[in-house]
């Protein structure tokens, strides 16, 4: 069946900015505007503005919503207070990742979920199966806008638009009225920088996009595409579903076990498998790898060697624009080599040296 490609609700903005568009997860999205390296640098040093309208926005409302979500999510949504959000997973019966998502609690009976574009319909259908008379899940693809404002200048730019309303704290979400529309602003992101994710209806989103561009421009803001989004997230050691996470990779193997809450009685899909992995260790684990300047960069799918033995495979790799050498996440068999140990990966039939490193490649801000 041919894949149907949807246009972003912000497509007219991308066209006006001269973006180069590519199909991604069923969406026609900007891959870059002024150039990946310039966009990457702008986000690290000033600010970047990303269209994330393709990300699935799902609202879960009604009495018993919490109880319903508790039985589906790997991280316990009961831990969230009003206005808080956290990272979570929907896992299959083997503990593999169907999707990674952000879960925000707006009020005790009102939750907001942001899921991957490629999983939006699947997750929505899965949730709807759990709809009870008092629980409703809504949010169809293409009906809303989402954008991410990221970087050291993000707060200063957003504060000007909000005209005095206080910005939400890190990992929090709040509702605002902007340009006459209802807007959700979360202090989260996918770049390793301080920043915000802004969700709204389409007419309001178009106005916010224009306002952020105009306000941010004198401060060094650039509109950024999927290209820099990927290099930025990998430098921050953040996983991409479909590469670093998949139905065959558990959150514990991905090194993200702290987002799987087993200190609660409630069962959820894959719980027994995940309990076993947490107790007796997983057969594989995700490690960080750093290459060397002047060597070919690591890429998704390259095999990883310790001496003559292949111990795993690179799930994501990129030449790091900030560090000037290759960085990668690799899934390797356990016991895994320690940080600082020398490994090799194979590029076009030739071995290239790499050192085991923490998965967050840039120092934490």
């Amino acid at each position: 069946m041919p894949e149907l490609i949807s246009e972003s609700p912000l497509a007219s903005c991308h066209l006006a900015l001269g973006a180069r568009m590519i199909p991604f997860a069923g969406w026609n999205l900007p891959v870059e505007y002024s150039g990946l390296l310039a966009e990457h640098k702008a986000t690290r040093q000033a600010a970047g503005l990303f269209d994330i309208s393709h990300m699935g926005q799902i609202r879960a409302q009604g009495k018993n919503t919490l109880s319903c979500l508790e039985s589906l999510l790997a991280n316990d949504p009961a831990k969230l207070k009003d206005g808080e959000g956290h990272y979570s997973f929907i896992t299959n019966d083997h503990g593999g990742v169907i999707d990674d998502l952000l879960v925000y609690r707006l009020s005790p009976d009102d939750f907001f979920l942001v899921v991957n574009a490629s999983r939006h319909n699947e997750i929505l259908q899965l949730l709807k199966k759990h709809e009870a008379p008092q629980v409703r899940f809504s949010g169809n693809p293409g009906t809303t806008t989402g954008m991410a404002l990221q970087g050291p200048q993000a707060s200063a730019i957003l504060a000007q638009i909000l005209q005095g309303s206080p910005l939400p704290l890190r990992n929090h979400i709040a509702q605002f009225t902007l340009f006459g529309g209802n807007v959700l602003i979360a202090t989260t992101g996918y770049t390793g920088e301080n920043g915000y994710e802004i969700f709204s209806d389409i007419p309001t989103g178009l106005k916010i996009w224009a306002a952020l561009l105009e306000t941010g421009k004198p401060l060094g803001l650039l509109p950024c595409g999927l290209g820099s989004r990927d290099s930025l997230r990998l430098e921050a050691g953040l996983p991409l579903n479909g590469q670093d996470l998949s139905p065959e990779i558990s959150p514990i193997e991905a090194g993200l076990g702290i987002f799987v809450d087993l200190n609660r009685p409630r069962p959820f899909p894959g719980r027994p498998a995940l309990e076993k992995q947490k107790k007796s260790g997983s057969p594989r684990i995700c490690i960080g790898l750093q290459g060397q300047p002047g060597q070919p960069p690591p890429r998704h799918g390259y095999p990883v060697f310790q001496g003559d033995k292949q111990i795993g495979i690179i799930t994501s790799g990129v030449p790091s624009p900030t560090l000037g050498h290759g960085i990668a996440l690799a899934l390797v068999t356990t016991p895994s080599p320690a940080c600082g140990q020398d490994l090799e990966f194979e590029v076009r039939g030739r071995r290239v040296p790499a050192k085991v490193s923490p998965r967050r490649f840039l120092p934490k801000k």
Partner: protein
Amino acid sequence: MNTPNDLLYAKSHEWLRIEKDSGTVGITDHAQSALSDVVFVELPKSGRVVKQGEVIATVESVKAASDIYAPVGGTILESNETLSSDPGLINRDPYGQGWLFRLRTDSPNSTGLLSSADYAATLPH
């Protein structure tokens, strides 16, 4: 997109400048633009014998690695060593300082290569 008249082009977006029995090869303006910022190149050693259409080099941007195919067969004479320290030359000057390698061509036969106008017609508008 710039496609100089004095060059021959492969459908896979390499250009060839014929100089007597040798040729210089690079990637086109369209190719460098589609790749975006080049950050790494792997070039052939001199003396290597290559057939037309064989993978002979790799050009990598932040996003991806792209194979470069030999537009004609021949023997590699030299590679552009400057690119290892400044791969961005490919983006800034694809038909000049961003050249990839020179080769002694097997024959003056450039079968399958396109003129500037024919190559330009294959590009998206």
